[in-house]
């Protein structure tokens, strides 16, 4: 049950990030707002997943977001979002069973 919740949390967080990326090129606040939602979900993690297998990963993500309190221009934001996305894919890959 906990494992399923953890996987679903990971998926929802990643999907939210991808929604932010989808709107990154648009002249609207949609991307920023999805990033705000992403950040709020991430803050919820210690409350709903106390013993998260990916606790250290989420802590690193929060650290990255804390370092970015001031959002720069669209290009910088886009670059930052891509970096965060890469962290997710690397984390997912780390969790895959190793091929013999």
């Amino acid at each position, binding site marked *: 049950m906990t494992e399923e919740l953890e996987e679903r949390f990971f998926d929802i967080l*990643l*999907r939210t990030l*991808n929604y932010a990326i989808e709107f990154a090129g648009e002249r609207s606040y949609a991307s920023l707002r999805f990033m705000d939602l992403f950040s709020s979900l991430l803050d919820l993690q210690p409350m709903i997943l106390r013993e998260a297998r990916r606790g250290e990963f989420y802590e690193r993500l929060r650290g990255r977001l804390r370092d970015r309190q001031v959002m720069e221009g669209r290009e910088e934001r886009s670059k930052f979002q891509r970096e965060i*996305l890469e962290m997710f*894919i690397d984390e997912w890959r780390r969790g895959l069973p190793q091929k013999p």
Partner: protein
Amino acid sequence: MEAIKARRSIRSFRAGEIRDEDVIKILDAARWAPSGGNRQPLSYIYVKDPQTLRMVKNCSPGFYGDAPSAIVIGAQGKLGPIDLLDAGFAAQNILLAAHSLGIGSCAIASFNGDAIKKILNAPDGWEPILLISLGYPDRIPKPPSRKPLSETVFINSYGNRWDKLEGLQ
């Protein structure tokens, strides 16, 4: 014509893996799609591993429903308009072949290409063009409306109505 008119974009799937033999038929249909100059620039990644598919879905905002598999259509190198047309031709063959086998599908253009490449270990320069989800339909949507032919087809010059089309639905 029956397959063309009855095919729907399916975004709601019931549980059940698709047989590999059927997917191979579907991919063979894509292989026989027209290709500009017969260059055949496209390649396909069939994704059925649940963990990989889950990540593809997470990185594709346009991917709806729990499809058990997907085909990623892509090509190597800088994509030109002919490559994109080829992908469109191949995609239509995939959608129709799937329909003829009782398999539902949906073309998905909203995805994060960089993420998909990384998830699928695609080489540098290979670009995904279109995703197609595949699975057994849970619900078949009603036919969407289509503009009448008389509104979209002209004869001999733009704007010149073709009387034979008047009143056709």
